């Protein structure tokens, strides 16, 4: 693992592009390379006995894709489905997953060295899944390691709990 991280660090460009989106009042950013497409929200097919933040599965051009409401997962106060509610379809290794967010704002390039480490805060997000904080003028951007967040045990997205998502 250590080796892999080193390689990743060496091959990481100094500036990365992030897709930013809003969840309630907070603004988040994820690696643009993990994003496959952005779609409007359509009610998916509910799955019985799944956690509340898993809205169900939907048909993405013939592929069955689970839809996770990130607002419910991260404990936002309100999770309304309006015309601006969008689904960001992610391609995480071999899996395709859609996440529901309030709105998508922008794609922005951030130099790696401008990231600040996230302080220890009690919250709904596993600390491992936060890459750092980025400053956008007055606003604060929370950069997520979306792959880590989605493959976490509590996401129940994969049957092989505890194993790294293949």
């Amino acid at each position, binding site marked *: 693992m250590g080796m892999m991280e080193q390689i990743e660090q060496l091959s990481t460009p100094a500036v990365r592009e992030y897709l930013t989106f809003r969840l309630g009042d907070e603004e988040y950013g994820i690696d643009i390379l993990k994003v496959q497409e952005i779609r409007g929200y359509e009610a998916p097919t509910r799955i019985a006995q799944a956690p509340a933040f898993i809205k169900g*599965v939907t048909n993405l051009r013939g592929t069955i894709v689970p839809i996770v409401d990130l607002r419910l997962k991260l404990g936002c106060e309100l999770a309304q489905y309006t015309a601006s509610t969008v689904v960001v379809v992610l391609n995480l290794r071999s899996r395709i997953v859609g996440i529901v967010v309030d709105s998508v704002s922008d794609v922005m390039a951030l130099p790696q060295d401008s990231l600040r480490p996230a302080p220890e805060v009690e919250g709904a997000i596993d600390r491992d899944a936060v890459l750092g904080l980025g400053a956008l003028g007055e606003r604060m951007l929370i950069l997520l390691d979306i792959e880590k967040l989605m493959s976490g045990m509590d996401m129940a997205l994969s049957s092989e709990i505890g194993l790294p998502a293949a």
Partner: protein
Amino acid sequence: MSEMHQESSGSGDSFDLSQFYQIFFEEAGENLDLMEQMLLNLNLEAADDEELNGIFRCAHSVKGGAATFGFADVAELTHQMESLLDRLRRHELQPNPQMVDVLLESADVSRGLLARHQAGGAGDPLPTADLVRRISLLASGGMLTPEPAPLVQSDSQSKVLGATQKLTNASAPSGVAPAERSLAISIGPMDKPEQADAILELFRDIAGLGKIVASTSDREDTRVFAVETTSSDEDLLDLFEFHISRELVKIQTVPETGAVTPGDGQELSESSAIHAGLTSYADDPPPGAPLAPLPGFGFFDGSPGAPAAGATVVQPAAEQKTAVANPAARAAAPAAQTEAATIRVAISKVDQLINLVGELVITQAMLAQNSRALDPAVYQQMLVGLADLDRNTRDLQESVMSIRMIPMSIVFSRFPRMLRDLAGKLGKKVDFITQGEATELDKGLVEKITDPLTHLVRNSCDHGIEMPADRLAAGKPETGTITLSAAHQGGSIVIEVRDDGRGMSREKILNKARERGLSVSDQMPDSEVWQLIFAPGFSTAEVVTDVSGRGVGMDVVKRNITALNGTVEIDSAEGFGMKVSVRLPLTLAIMDGMSVGIGNEVYLLPLSSVIESFQVDANAVNTVGQGAQLVKVREEYMPVIEMEKLFQVPRFSAEKCNSIMVVIEADGSRVALLVDELLGQQQVVVKNLESNYRKVPNVSGATILGDGKVALILDTAALVRRSRH
């Protein structure tokens, strides 16, 4: 398609295998190509076991197929190759370049033999005796005395080339160089005169044939060429025949003294004689105009005006040429036809097509919905267009789906004949029963499951079923039974090969495993012992026959099925028979489904497990113990599963209520499902939930409905199991 779904139970005496020839030829071709590739890459000093096994398997597969289809020459040759390869992979022999040469040559000859069979047996039989002798010499550890390998070319075009060369060779020793003649060749009338241009390439490709120049034609459907050549008219016609039908070609000699190559005196005078004899033709209608059939033109049969003197030189060669080239020409024609009948396309392309069509159907449904509000009087044309679109999309979807889906009967119907021959050869009596041949399966799966199934059925017949006398002695009926069945079962397809033969001996397998140096113990559970027979080269058969017994079968079976994400289970009782179950995932199997409504949600039940449905009578439902419900159906009490509760279906209106019971059966027991309504029956494509999500309890998969929504497919086996606890 329908005529291919033959009755596949019984021994199938009048069964026609020819429908599968094409598949075999394609597979064999691929195997030979693969083998050639691996042979060429083989490192002789340190041959990799995996590579040797791979080459061996290729030869084995070709042999198996050839034996099944009765191509004895191919089977014999590949059997020899296999024997040699078997010794190589067991490291009893060290591979050397001679072996590779001989094996490559054998692959070429096999290809030639197959091409001949594919063409319906036309053409000269290829001699294999010498090759077989050399292989067996090598296989017995001997070395070959260097001798030139006979050149074998399976390609019909190169045969023609060879023939042409022979022609020139045959002409040369006669000591007389044939005179060069100037000809005007007109081809036509034909619909596509550009086809005639192919002969330009002939002249370019075949060295020494001569020069050709296209000249202008006064008719659009005819091409005219000016040719200078030493070949006879007959030779030219033979060559042209590959591109143009013989009757369309007219050859005329152009008297042009300058074009005559001066030979010796006699030759020159002969050439002059030709021209002298033919001058009259110069007065014939111009090339391209409809010609009266020229008597004996181009044939050396002594017709008036035929170049009698000059022809004597060329004639023997011409005859020889005809003898060689004509079978090749005949062979080429049917081969071209069969090649055009099927094409092999990457499965990924078909998948993409299926997904795109699915999208198209959804878009079309949306358009249809939105257009309903339009005034038919104003938008008549558009509505007509949409109706056409609707029909076309439906047809398109059906056709695209049908590309991949084929019923198991296609695979099953291969076997009755094979078993009949096999049983005859072994002196056994076998009944063959098939079940579930209508189960539809993805073509990709069917293709890959065929070989493993063939091995399993052969094994059952060869090793499983005993000789009639032994069966009687064991108190069994004289005739053994092999059953092949296919069924959808809880998100998988299960294909079983059962026989009531002698089963497997635990002791024998354990002993054999110890012999081969595998770590085993007497305490191993049966299931683990049976799995041992999947090790490469493991066979308990005493005799190696051309049926089976080299132990190659089972490791191929296991490998192929694991590659499909499937599993193989073996169950055996010594003396009573054996059952091999192959379980494959339903990656893309089509299923007849019944859609049921629960609240606002739609679920699908596999139609095959639905027994009946009925309106619930409140009096018929009783509760037992802690509220478990039972329903009385015709004197039988059945457990009830309230789908609304099980699937936590939210209910918005109190109007609809559970009113329908659907009785399903799985694993031999029945339960009644309480649902709101029955929505209808439809064919659905089963999609995997696990590829992007995870296993969902009581659900075997998902499908996409006509409106683009995802509907879950209920796992009837799980529901039935649930009611038992």
